[in-house]
């Protein structure tokens, strides 16, 4: 298991989702991916994308205008 981060600050949806998706494609099942973003839409879109594609949202943390979403990469390929 390894840990990775995607910086999607200032990007508007769906760009944070695209960045997350493209990074997740490089990772293995069980890896942890942390996405940092500022578009509040990402708190809906990234979990929706995870549900569709078999990944697991471990945590969503919002501090001021910065949102940190932690994901465990799934193994559905």
């Amino acid at each position: 298991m390894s840990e990775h981060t995607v910086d999607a600050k200032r990007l508007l949806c769906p760009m944070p989702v695209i960045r997350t998706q493209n990074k997740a494609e490089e990772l293995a099942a069980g890896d942890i991916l942390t996405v940092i973003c500022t578009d509040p839409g990402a708190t809906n879109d990234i979990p929706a994308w995870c549900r569709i594609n078999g990944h697991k949202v471990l945590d969503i943390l919002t501090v001021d205008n910065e949102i940190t979403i932690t994901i465990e990469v799934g193994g559905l390929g």
Partner: protein
Amino acid sequence: MSTQPKAVALISGGLDSMLATRLVMDQGVHVEGLNFFTGFCVEGHTHAIRKQDKTKPKRNNALWVAEQLGIKLHIVDVIEPYKDVVINPKHGYGANLNPCLDCKGFMVQKAYEWIQAHQFDFIITGEVMGQRPMSQRKNTMPVVQKESGAGDLLVRPLCAKLLPPTRPELEGWLDREQLLDFSGRSRKPQMALAARLGIEDYAQPAGGCCFLTDQAYSKKLADLWQARGNREYELDDIMLLKVGRHLRPKQHFKIIISREEGESRFLEGYRKQFVHLITTSHGGPLALIDGDVDASDIQLAAQLVARYSQGRSADIVDVEVNRKDGSSEVLHVTPLSPKDIPEQWYI
């Protein structure tokens, strides 16, 4: 084919592609969705920017549709290659700056590349014959097939019976009899089909699937191109056209003024790239100046910004001017009165 056939569906987030996908899934085909982000898409983020839209769902409709259908969705960033479609459309534009026919050809071509790379068998779109004046006419449907390279691997389940059989139908991967013959602009057949399939909630896009069909947006894009003397654009340019009030007092600069808090927050992200103005004596908007400006231009811009602040009827409003190099100064200006703002400044 011994294994289950695999198709990729172009998912826009609207009802038609959702229905087309369901029809094909119901025939036992494995379907995954593709959604292209061109930079012009009408997405939840514009709701996110504008605070007043907070009550509306901020969902991304393409993701939502995929979830309802229970399929995977691949969102593809096509911002760069799409520029050529917008700048040089071979088939021209529609009512506004929407190059729909070239756009459809481009997206199906990208989908065709995708199925080749992922060993999928065919492509589905939600097109309906005669529904859109430009891209969905009987004589333009073969154009998309041909120019995309997808040929007879492109299936339009909602109007397939009005078109020659495609390879998936001839090979028996799809039963043509279960495909449909929708045509025309009426939405009733789609709504009836949605009801039959138990689909109750769906997005109803007003115009098209992107900002290029929007008259006000197209006007701003045309203005940008005209002022720059070329049609190049970056993602930031086309995002900024979605936000704020745009005024061009002189050919060489324009001002983008936020209309409410959400837009101010969004424009704040661009502070380092533009000269930006904020009123300090009164509550007011955040404004960016796009263009190379001198002191008199900045003075005029400050008066305009003051006009849109809470100090609009005050004698003097303090406006902080922040330059790209980080330096700043405060100007004390008289707000422009509405009669001093010519109609043609508004883009």
